[in-house]
């Protein structure tokens, strides 16, 4: 009897444990939707999604609630980060996996772990005191889209390098001896064998890190200038949707607050789509 009761208790708590993450996800969606509701009802969706004008007010008819410029800014800043970090990380991965002496490649990986461990606010601070003044020399004030891209690139670089390196070593373990046996040069091996074999994992890694960049707040907020507008060049100041939330959330009220939650909901939606796409992809791979 005692045994079955304990067993029941344990099974019960395990079920609770298994349900907890689902409940948490649902309540995040739920609370965001509840808080965003006034905006979803009172602000036309077309205005939120397609208009760039952002002049928030407490009442819906007094302000402009366009999130479009900020959505575009979010996408631009993460895309730019991936464009900068992707090639550098890919080449670094090749070097660490195929060219460097083992000790050196371990050293690079250790450095990447250190870089990955830095808090985003520290990287943002570096951007603010080092990158922004440098860009400011070229075009004042230096707080701009490009600065955001550089800071985010520094943030996602280590994850990419590690992902690429791990993938490349996997391929190398299988095929490098065979390639050496038929006399392939290392560069030929990388270009003809490693690259095609890693096409999908590379895209996966870029998407995962791009998603991280999309959700990053503080590092970006500190360097992009936070002006709400469509970027027309790398030197334009922009305000991504995450920065908007962090800037205005502390004092927003009424529809203004609801629109910020709507922005968060949109961001969560984009991230959810990415996660679903990845999961489906993995399942197809596994099949």
């Amino acid at each position, binding site marked *: 009897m005692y*045994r079955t009761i*304990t*067993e029941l208790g*344990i099974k019960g*708590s395990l079920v*609770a*444990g*298994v*349900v*907890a*993450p689902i409940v*948490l*996800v649902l*309540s*995040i969606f739920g*609370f*965001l939707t509840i808080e965003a509701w006034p905006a979803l009802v009172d602000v036309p969706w077309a205005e939120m999604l397609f208009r760039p004008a952002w002049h928030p007010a407490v009442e819906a008819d007094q302000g402009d609630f366009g999130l479009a410029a900020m959505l575009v800014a979010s996408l631009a800043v993460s895309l730019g980060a991936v464009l900068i970090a992707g090639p*550098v990380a890919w*080449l*670094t991965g090749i*070097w660490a996996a195929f*060219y460097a002496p083992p000790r050196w490649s371990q050293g*690079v990986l250790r*450095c*990447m*772990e250190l*870089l990955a*461990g*830095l*808090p*985003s*606010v*520290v990287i*943002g*601070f*570096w951007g*603010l005191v*080092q990158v922004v003044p440098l860009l400011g020399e070229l075009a004042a004030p230096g707080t701009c889209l490009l600065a955001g891209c550089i800071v985010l690139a520094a943030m996602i*670089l*280590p*994850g990419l390098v*590690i*992902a690429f390196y*791990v993938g490349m070593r996997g391929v190398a373990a299988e095929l490098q001896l065979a390639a050496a046996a038929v006399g392939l040069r290392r560069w030929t091996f990388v270009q003809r064998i490693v690259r095609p074999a890693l096409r999908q994992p590379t895209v*996966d890694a870029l998407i*995962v*890190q791009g998603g*991280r960049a*999309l*959700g990053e*707040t*503080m590092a970006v907020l500190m360097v992009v200038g936070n002006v709400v507008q469509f970027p027309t060049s790398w030197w334009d100041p922009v305000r991504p949707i995450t920065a908007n*939330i*962090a800037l205005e*959330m502390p004092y927003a009220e009424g529809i203004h607050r609801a629109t*910020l939650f709507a922005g*968060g909901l949109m*961001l*969560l939606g984009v*991230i959810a789509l990415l996660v679903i796409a990845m999961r489906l992809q993995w399942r197809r791979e596994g099949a």
Partner: protein
Amino acid sequence: MTDRWSAWITGTAACLTVAVLAWIAADLIRGVGVVRWQFFVHGPEDFGRGGGVAPMIVASLWLVLISWAVVIPLGILAATALVVGRLHQWPGLRWVEWALDLLAATPSVVIGLFGNAFFCVALGLGFSLLAGGLTLGCMTLPLFVRTTQIGLQAAVTQHYATASALGLALPTTLLRIVLPAAGPAMSAALILATGRSLAETAALIFTSGYVPRMPLSAFDSGRSLSVHVYDLAMNVSGGDQAARGTALVLVVLLLAINAASRLLLGQHGIGILHSVNVGRSNTRA
């Protein structure tokens, strides 16, 4: 292209990559002059230009401990359930995996929005360390579950068949054999989650607030070390040096945490750390 050229090109890229780290480190190191022992025991003066960071250290401790209260019980249960459930082929486990992946990918600022709506407003906790810590708990849950799960899976693979053959009941197997065997992985998971909490800024600004005072209880608002760095960098002219010092303290703390988790996980753990860093779930067989 010859191998020599490609070695040069890739080598240059590697140098560039490491140079980023070196650049950031070189800037932070300039703040070392600020960090004396008084820095750890005094509160900030003159809006943080002088004085120390004692209240921020205490606030960070509060936040971490409160997040543990969410992460440890929920996380161990969820990880155990995932492993046991897979063994017994429970239905619907896939959804839990999806939920964890989604949670892990959710931007911290969105979790902060949830924390503000739920803990601060709906539960009436206001801007408090309690609300901030609970938010951090929700944020670090997937990381903790994933890392614990790896240790549990190994323990189950190793011992479960034997235990069943001996006729041990599920509770005995779990409590006496599997969970102890997964101890190091759990500690490592906790350390990783702690690191993530200490590094967080965005989710805290509108949950625990940023009062730069010594918090007297969990219901007070408090400013974490990371939020202090942000405030000094953005809002205090002449605060850069203090920001460097505070960031240095934070980074050294995080390095110690990373080293500890590496020790716990051993050689086997490098892979875990990598997959956690890469953000890809590693539970696929």
